[in-house]
């Protein structure tokens, strides 16, 4: 029997169970929670703090680069700052951002589960994150490292700066990431609601699932790598030290075996968010559901076969360079499948140009440019020219900031009513989105040009004729910073004074909207039985169809 109308009325009206936000308001009720939603919110706060911390480092770097000569800070300070910027942005923000914050919050809702498979482990993951962050920040306060976030040996095993605490922090953060990924895989396998088979899973769940596979399989290799570097530092084992017969390129192999797939840890959940939101704002079924779902798994798999393209000029053999060059391009195929499908979804849809949609557009544009320059960089001969220049910097910022952060913002705006039951100011949302997209272009397009002219990355000083483009880039980054501050302000206002939002303000067919917004502690009064396809906009029924037996 379908009780869709009464049911949604019951859910939209005064919910029988208190929302997860009202169920205990003491500090301990948050710190000791087992609720995946609260863990998600705590992660969200933590990653936003990290993002602003990393952003301040980035802006300081850009300020220094206004002048070709020494300015504001000395060379060592500059080296430390870009290392901290990289470490904070990658390990504290990008990797946990979407999976640990939004994945934790919406994934169980989307599959009709009351919680993740291992709630206590989930909370442990958050504390591991905090511990890792604390140790890394301790290292930063006590001098910081100057190795770059890549910790290349033998420099990282010999430099007198504080590499050890940061390595240890990264190791613990890796644990946090593994635990989250493991939890999600098991959740998807064992806690799907009745009727929700694999080919009915929402596309965001597919994205998170693919991400989790990478987290589980790649992160341990990073763990052992930083562990060996730590041992080198305090015990001189010499495994990566050429003076003792070690091979520094071996370090790079092991490091990039994690760190290249890590790019997909950052971008696959982003793609999941876009798949989810593009349907909601085009009000149309996904074009090629299976293709989008399978290409997520495809990227996760192929992403492991490409790490050598970071080693083209490191002394890697021609055989490996050729193999990795070709394999790297395979990622382009799967990404292109997704891009065509998203555009196909928008085509002839009833597009609602809300704030998240603005970020979707930004995402598509940045992903295409970031991806295409990536394919160019995977061509060995071109990479020899561009390697370690600002071209590479601009390329990966297009992917990491352009794609991942745009998707993060899309998710933040799209799920804000779901998480907190409040509405934010739409006008300011669009202003901030335009500012960010504009500022982003102004920051990184000049860097493509600078890189192509040969300006190397991570250099404290540069020739004077590069100054104009550097000033343009710094100006852009200021705009970008303003955009983020505006978002912070209007979201804070919305949290405190915002209007109560409807249960499903977007009219979305995503399964997470099956329950109240904000959801009750145990998510569902009754576990729903899923009868629809996800994102099915052809019907007028509420998402998922809640059926009471």
């Amino acid at each position: 029997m379908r009780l869709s109308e009464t049911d949604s009325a019951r859910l939209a009206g005064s919910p029988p169970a208190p929302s997860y936000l009202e169920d205990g308001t003491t500090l301990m009720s948050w710190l000791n929670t087992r609720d995946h939603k609260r863990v998600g919110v705590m992660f969200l706060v933590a990653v936003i703090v990290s993002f602003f911390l990393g952003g301040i480092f980035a802006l300081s770097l850009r300020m220094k680069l206004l002048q070709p000569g020494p300015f504001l800070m000395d060379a060592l300070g500059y080296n430390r700052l870009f290392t901290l910027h990289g470490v904070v942005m990658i390990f504290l923000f990008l990797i946990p951002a979407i999976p640990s914050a939004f994945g934790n919050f919406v994934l169980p809702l989307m599959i009709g589960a009351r919680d993740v498979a291992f709630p206590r482990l989930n909370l442990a993951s958050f504390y591991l994150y905090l511990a890792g962050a604390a140790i890394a920040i301790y290292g930063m306060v006590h001098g910081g490292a100057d190795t770059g976030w890549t910790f290349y040996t033998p420099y990282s095993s010999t430099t007198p700066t504080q590499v050890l605490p940061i390595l240890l922090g990264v190791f613990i953060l890796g644990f946090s990431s593994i635990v989250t990924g493991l939890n999600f895989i098991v959740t998807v396998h064992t806690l799907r609601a009745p009727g929700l088979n694999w080919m009915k899973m929402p596309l965001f769940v597919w994205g998170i699932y693919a991400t989790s596979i990478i987290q589980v399989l790649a992160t341990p290799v990073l763990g052992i790598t930083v562990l060996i570097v730590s041992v080198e530092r305090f015990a001189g084992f010499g495994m990566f030290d050429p003076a003792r017969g070690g091979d520094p390129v071996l370090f790079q192999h092991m490091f990039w075996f994690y760190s290249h797939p890590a790019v997909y840890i950052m971008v696959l959940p982003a793609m999941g968010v876009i798949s989810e939101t593009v349907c909601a704002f085009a009000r149309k079924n996904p074009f090629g559901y299976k293709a989008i779902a399978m290409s997520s798994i495809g990227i996760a798999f192929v992403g492991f076969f490409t790490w050598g393209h970071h080693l083209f000029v490191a002394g890697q053999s021609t055989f490996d360079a050729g193999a990795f060059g070709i394999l790297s391009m395979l990622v382009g195929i799967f990404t292109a499948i997704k891009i065509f499908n998203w555009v196909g979804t928008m085509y002839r849809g009833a597009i609602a140009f809300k704030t998240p949609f603005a970020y979707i557009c930004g995402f598509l544009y940045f992903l295409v440019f970031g991806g295409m320059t990536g394919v160019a960089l995977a061509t060995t001969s071109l990479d020899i020219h561009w390697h370690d220049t600002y071209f590479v910097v601009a390329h990966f910022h297009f992917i990491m900031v352009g794609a991942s952060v745009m998707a993060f913002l899309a998710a933040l705006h799209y799920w804000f009513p779901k998480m907190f039951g409040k509405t934010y100011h739409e006008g300011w949302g669009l202003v901030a989105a335009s500012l960010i997209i504009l500022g982003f272009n102004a920051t990184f397009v000049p860097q493509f040009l600078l890189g192509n002219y040969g300006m190397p990355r991570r250099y404290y000083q540069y020739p004077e004729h590069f100054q104009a483009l550097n000033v343009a880039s710094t100006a852009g980054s200021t705009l970008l910073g303003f955009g983020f501050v505006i978002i912070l302000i209007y979201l804070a206002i919305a949290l405190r004074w915002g209007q109560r939002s409807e249960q499903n303000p977007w009219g979305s067919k995503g399964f997470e909207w099956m329950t109240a917004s904000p959801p009750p502690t145990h998510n569902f009064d009754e576990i729903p039985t899923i009868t629809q396809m996800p994102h099915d906009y052809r019907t007028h029924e509420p998402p998922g169809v809640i059926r009471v037996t």
Partner: protein
Amino acid sequence: MAESALPSEKLHPDREEPHAHSAVPYVIVWIVLLFFTALTYVTGTMHLGKWALPIALAIACVKSALVVLIFMHLKESSGTTRLVFVTALIFLGLLMFFTVADVATRFKLATPAGAPFGTERSQPEGLLEHEMPAEPEQ
């Protein structure tokens, strides 16, 4: 119950404590493992030259297969668990393959005489064969 419609629910109706019956398989596996340990010890001390590594690895693979399938019950586990294990092995192989392939196909650097870490591989092949101890010298 509606849950029974789920694929993972009905995976192994026969896995209801199939191991509860007898400890005999464990004893057999233990004895076989000890036998293979003796075998690998004997073949290992024979110094079989280029065959030593493949033989030792083959024996280790057989031993670990026994441990994984019987002691760790992977034989009776769900398909997903098996997939997890096999995937881990595939990615172990992936990391090893491309990294060793790199070292093996690298352009051989000219090492000046007396350099502390002139790799043996960069010397003429004949010398290597000659120096390779084929006989046990204990």
